[in-house]
């Protein structure tokens, strides 16, 4: 059965179940804030637009999860539990709204917000960028296959290839030499990742994991 789409119906499909929608909303609420900060740090209108785009999708998801949740309540207990679930979904959407508001700050001249990048660079988990060198053995592999985050603690939130931005680039995208990676994590993790990205260090080989 085709899912009911919200007023903001787009080309992108809305997942079918409450569980799938909530999972997507939870994931999105995390990545969208990182992207919003990255947009400020790099003064990037492109990233800001992506944040707005994701934010609109969150509205659609919230609308859909409300409908599905209401349809699935059978008892008072169901309704009580689903009210809590919808509160979580609304909160995830509220977080993405906040991210949308954050990128709106790009409308103001950058000399009015010179302190923002400075503040964000001092954060516990920092947002930085680095170049993928020709000699790096990360080239031609996907982020998921490498397990970049579990290896280095750095999460790649976006990458720039030529003029094009790729967001949430985990799967299906083989890294290419010259890619600019926008990453989030600790200072120490950044140094580790930089050594791999410049080709200074080889990416470690592990015996094939179960299920890999």
């Amino acid at each position, binding site marked *: 059965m085709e899912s009911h789409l919200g007023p903001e119906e787009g080309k992108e499909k809305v997942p079918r179940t409450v569980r799938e929608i909530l999972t997507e909303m939870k994931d999105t609420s995390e990545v969208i804030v990182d992207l919003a900060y990255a947009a400020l740090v790099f003064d990037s209108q492109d990233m800001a637009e992506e944040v707005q785009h994701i934010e609109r999708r969150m509205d659609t998801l919230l609308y859909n999860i409300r409908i599905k949740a209401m349809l699935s309540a059978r008892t008072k207990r169901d309704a009580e539990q689903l009210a809590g679930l919808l509160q*979580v979904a609304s909160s995830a959407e509220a977080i993405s709204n906040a991210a949308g508001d954050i990128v709106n700050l790009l409308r103001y001249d950058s000399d009015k917000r010179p302190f923002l990048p400075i503040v964000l660079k001092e954060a516990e*988990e920092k947002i930085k960028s680095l170049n993928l060198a020709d000699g790096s053995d990360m080239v031609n592999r996907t982020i998921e296959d490498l397990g970049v985050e579990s290896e280095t603690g750095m999460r790649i939130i976006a990458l720039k290839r030529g003029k094009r931005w790729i967001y949430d680039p985990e799967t299906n995208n083989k890294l290419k030499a010259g890619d600019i990676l926008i990453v989030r994590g600790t200072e120490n993790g950044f140094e580790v990742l930089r050594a791999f990205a410049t080709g200074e260090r080889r990416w470690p080989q592990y015996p094939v994991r179960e299920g890999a």
Partner: protein
Amino acid sequence: MDELEQKLLEVKDTSELMVDLAYSSLLYNNRDIAQEVMELEEYTDELTTSIQQEAIKRAMADGDVSRAFVTIKLTESLEGICDAASGIAEVVMRNIEPHPVIKMSIRESEVIIATATVAEGSDLTDKALGESRLASQSGMWVVAIKRDRRYIYGPDEGTTVLAGDTLIVRGPRDGEDFFKDLASGHAKLA
């Protein structure tokens, strides 16, 4: 960074901790953690007020209205994130077992929450988090530590991990096994 920027940074870091704690409290249906989120919300409220007042004072002194405006706008967004985190924690405080789908969704996410108790022989034992570099070694970021009955929320790189501590961490799914093995002592740090 000046005092205002320090406070801004504190609110930003705390807002992220609150979201992590809020999802953790849901996953484990843990009222202690949910309560902490509520308390952090009051703390960030106070910080926000003082940042906003300071920004206005500065604008009155130097006439730079736009700068104050941007600062105030940003603190409002951060406050929005903090409010959302306490909205999530509120679900736990209500004394109704959270819907089972919530747990499944949190477990199925790209960014998961996991927990493990640190064994005597673990490489993490008696080391500060900055020393074992758990985050860059496993991708897992420590959100809270449970020590006996007490919690340490948002530990930093100077926080020492002791045997018997239970770590609540946030990170990529494929970092979970290594993290658990590290905690139990079955795996060693590189």
